[in-house]
């Protein structure tokens, strides 16, 4: 009975996912924020840091792109829908908060991993080789879920002004990029830098991506996967719990 109910709710979350993709993701700003901004950051470092290998920079570009795309839209869905009162309609339907959050996460996840094709293509064009494609795909899937869930945590404060949430989101996302070994290799960081980097899921995703395109990773593959799985579970559960607490304050 419980499994039937679980599958039924899972199916309903696909409706949320389709709605999100149609309304929020098939729009220019998502591509701009998700891909072009990381690309410009990449080009700035590519031009300024001639000592860094192309494999290092490409893995950073893949990490940034997946991270920015997966967290670009998900934080503003809840405040936006509360403002235009469509959230009230969703809450009046027979779906749980977990179903709602899972649907939002799925839409964000799909875009996160689809956009990753662009930096991978740039990397291939610039002469990098994917040495472990299966690991890269698994890493992309895991990273996509992890970052999408992270984006949903950012949307949990009960503010119905998307601009407020975007401000909080930017305050959290940008520093994370600079502490995650994307522009400075982890091995070159001071001890305190490595400690801070270890608290960022982006560190492990970028490190894992580095491994799959033939560069040396700082952590072991098992450590990267274990850390990403833990972050993913914690982020998703936390996102659901926080929204369960705050969603009624939005209405």
């Amino acid at each position, binding site marked *: 009975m419980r499994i039937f*109910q679980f599958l*039924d709710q899972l*199916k*309903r979350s*696909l*409706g*949320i996912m*389709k*709605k999100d993709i*149609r*309304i929020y993701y098939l729009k220019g700003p998502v591509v701009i924020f998700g891909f072009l901004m990381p690309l410009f950051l990449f080009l700035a470092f590519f031009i300024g840091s001639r000592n860094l290998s192309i494999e290092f920079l490409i893995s950073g570009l893949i990490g940034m792109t997946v991270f920015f795309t997966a967290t670009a839209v998900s934080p503003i869905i809840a405040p936006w829908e509360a403002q*235009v*009162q*469509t959230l*009230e*309609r*969703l*809450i*009046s*339907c*027979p*779906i*749980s908060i977990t179903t709602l959050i899972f649907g939002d996460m799925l839409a964000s996840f799909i875009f996160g991993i689809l956009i990753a094709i662009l930096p991978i293509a740039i990397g291939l064009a610039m002469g990098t080789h994917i040495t472990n494609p299966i690991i890269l795909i698994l890493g992309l899937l895991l990273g996509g879920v992890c970052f999408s869930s992270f984006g949903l945590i950012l949307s949990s404060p009960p503010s119905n002004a998307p601009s407020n949430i975007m401000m909080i989101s930017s305050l959290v996302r940008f520093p994370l990029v600079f502490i995650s070994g994307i522009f400075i290799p982890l091995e070159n960081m001071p001890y305190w830098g490595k400690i801070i980097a270890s608290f960022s899921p982006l560190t492990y995703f970028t490190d894992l991506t580095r491994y799959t395109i033939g560069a040396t990773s700082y952590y072991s593959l098992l450590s990267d996967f274990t850390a990403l799985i833990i972050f993913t579970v914690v982020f998703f559960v936390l996102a659901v719990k926080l929204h369960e607490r705050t969603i*009624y304050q939005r*209405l």
Partner: protein
Amino acid sequence: MDHVVEVQNLTKIYNKLVAVDHINFEVKKGEIFGFLGPNGAGKTTTVRMLTGIIKPIEGHAIILGHDIQKEPLKAKQNICVVPETSNAYVDLSAWQNMMLMAELYGIPKKEAEARAEDLLRRLSLYQRKNSKVKGFSKGMKQRLILCMALINDPVLVFLDEPTSGLDVQSSRMIREILLEFPKEGKTIFLTTHNMDEASHLCDRVAIINHGKIAAIDRPATLKNTIKKLNSIEISFDSAIKAENLSEIPHIIEIRKEGDKFIISTDDVDDLIHSLTDFAESQKLKIISLNTMAPSLEEVFVKLTGEV
């Protein structure tokens, strides 16, 4: 199950303001139940608690046999909500909105498509099914909301001011659909400001004021509870001034409407006799004389103190 809605001590407080204060009532299966009250009385807050949109701080609401707090998914599966303000997705087409609702209620695709087509046709929206909702008029949006709400073929329909501010055509279409619901075995919980609508549509009405239920009964019974507010409409063959009538006993208030006088009284029988005596003494002929029972609006005004 005789009652589809059972409300026990339902209470909601917003920042120390008691919006709904320990209300109790039941809604019987198959009836049209009107929920009336002035602005800020707690109508919409009550509907939102009954439909699981907000949580009460105290009390219970049993919807179709399920506690809306403890078993929200089961309670919501066979109900629908038509809010006052349209909340369809304006960036989606009418059809996409319908299919989204069908998916959220777990309705199989073929069944959903057949129901959506039928509903959109009944509410004259089928020709615009592929148009984005952002291009719809207010009336079209409200009709679409009704279509979306009915996609799950609900047993219990919550309507919050469904015809408020709509054009005549849309209001009429929505009312026609509402009148079909009892024949289909559906129960309607109707929140409205429109006393005429409530008086004509509802089997029973509850009047809420300052978060408390002021009265709950059949419209006719409520009207009888304030008999003292009965009035008489009279017109004479010659023009006279209202002051000429003021000496007649049992008159509470005189209002002139065209060539008629509307006279409020606490004793209809005595007033009729006095008026005929007055007409005879003044050599006037009575052209028309009607007794008027209080309207539901007058009951509402009396009970809520609203003007």
